[in-house]
């Protein structure tokens, strides 16, 4: 120990401030949250040990089951829509004149915060917004109170999130596309393959490293979706559009069920780490 300090004293001096801050803020928090998840704690009396009760509740209580289901809907939707659309936009825009203008338009929502995006879409889903256009086109039967009927509210919020998140995926795919080798495409052109055929059998396979990264990033983010929902519905009505992150917040800071909130955070953590393992493995383990 002292030998280590003697040889590394100077280096340690540089590294410690950051390491100490991280330990104080986050490592300690993780330990405390794990402990809380096994307790019942309202913030007033001392935490009371309840074993696995909070975890069992997540899979039995109807409110939490709805929340788990909504989270899964969000995960699947964000995995398919912003990634798929981002890929489509990038392929359409590749080698197109005026690419810059279109790129900026699709990218613009990403330069706004999720809070702002949420407010914008509450405004668009209000009575004189999207419903008005539906009625204009004779589709009045589709008009509804988008944010107060289930499950439409979840789909409406997914639309908002797709609007915000597609641009950045498009940008990543465009970078990936511009780095692809030219030869396979020339060969395909000589063979007379059309654009759709070329896309499926050449572009897509060559692009798969980028696709994996983009999907991984979307996946990690989709588990934690909070801001848009909090702004647009607050998880309501009657907690019908909550995801795990929103349920966690409500349990902890509205209902003061800190133990239950902690257990939900742990489930969220385990799920997101398990599913994104392949992504993390790419970023960390190869350096070990």
């Amino acid at each position: 120990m002292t030998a280590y300090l003697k040889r590394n004293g100077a280096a340690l001096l540089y590294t410690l401030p950051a390491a100490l801050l991280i330990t104080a803020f986050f490592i300690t928090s993780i330990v405390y949250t794990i402990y809380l998840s096994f307790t019942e704690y309202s913030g007033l009396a001392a935490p009371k040990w309840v074993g696995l009760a909070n975890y069992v509740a997540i899979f039995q209580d109807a409110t939490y089951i709805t929340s788990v289901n909504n989270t899964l809907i969000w995960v699947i939707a964000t995995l398919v829509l912003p990634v798929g659309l981002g890929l489509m936009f990038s392929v359409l825009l590749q080698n197109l004149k005026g690419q810059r203008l279109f790129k900026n338009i699709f990218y613009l929502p990403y330069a706004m915060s999720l809070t702002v995006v949420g407010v914008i879409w509450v405004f668009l889903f209000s009575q004189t917004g999207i419903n008005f256009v539906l009625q204009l086109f004779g589709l009045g039967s589709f008009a509804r109170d988008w944010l107060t009927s289930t499950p439409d509210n979840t789909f409406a919020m997914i639309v908002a999130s797709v609007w915000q998140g597609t641009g950045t995926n498009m940008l990543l795919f465009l970078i990936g596309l511009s780095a692809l080798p030219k030869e396979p495409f020339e060969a395909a052109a000589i063979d007379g393959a059309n654009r759709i055929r070329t896309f499926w059998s050449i572009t897509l396979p060559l692009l798969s490293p980028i696709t994996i990264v983009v999907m991984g990033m979307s996946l990690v983010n989709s588990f934690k979706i909070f801001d848009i929902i909090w702004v647009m519905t607050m998880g309501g009505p009657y907690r019908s559009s909550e995801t795990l992150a929103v349920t966690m917040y409500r349990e902890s800071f509205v209902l003061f069920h800190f133990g239950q909130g902690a257990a939900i955070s742990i489930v969220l953590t385990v799920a997101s780490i398990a599913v994104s393992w392949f992504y993390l493995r790419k970023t960390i383990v190869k350096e070990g």
Partner: protein
Amino acid sequence: MKRIRIGQWVTYIIISVLAVFWVTPVILVVMNASKSLADFSSGNIWVFPKTFQLGLNMMDALRMGNLGHGLLSSLCYGVLGSGIAIFLAAMAAFGIVILRLKGGFYWFLLIYSGTIFPFQMYLVPLFKGYQKLGLYDTFGGMLLFYIAIAIPFCVFLLRNYMTTLPYEIVEAAQLDGSHSFGIFTRIIGPLLLPPISVLFLFQFTWIWNDLVFGMTLSRSETVRPVMAGLATMQGIYFRSGITTLLAGIVLTSMPTILLFFALQRNFIKGMLLTVKS
């Protein structure tokens, strides 16, 4: 040849339709943020404004919606928070990479672990801890949190970047008798400018856009960051002052939109760095 032309036209048509869909919400926000409340209530959101008072509505949002405080606080959090975080992270990376801290990889993992867990893990402990230590709802407490949350990613990027620097520069400086802090500030520091500009953009935007920690760790209008303020304002203003609310949206989005488009190149470079690693 003709087929390719038709294909191009089809592409243009598809992409233009999509672009119209994408840009319409933004246009509608700006249009309605410019209306007077009477003008807004008399029509629907698709009608072109008869009045033009975007500036006036913005002033309303600043004063009555109290967004002014939030904007100022978030500007401080964003600039100071990312600045200090980058400095501390550069120091940590310097210790690990240049001074070759033994077991440096494990120190790195310790710091980097801060990015792996969902933020929900930190909310309650930080809230409780902040209350106990008197940091809850204080400027210093908010700033300290933003510094801490920004550090892991900065260390990650700067550590990667430093490993690509030629080590001979450091050896030469050591032969000249430079002290480690001199090497850090005068030799390594200037070389770090490219990744630092990227990091600053990333972290400033993150802090500016943060909602959940602002909501959790602060309450008063003087401390609360801008997005938490906007979320509160939404609850109050959606029915009674929607044009003010929309002007508030334009106002709070301006800084990040300007940053993104002014520094777009850096941003793409930054995304490349993250994706490659």
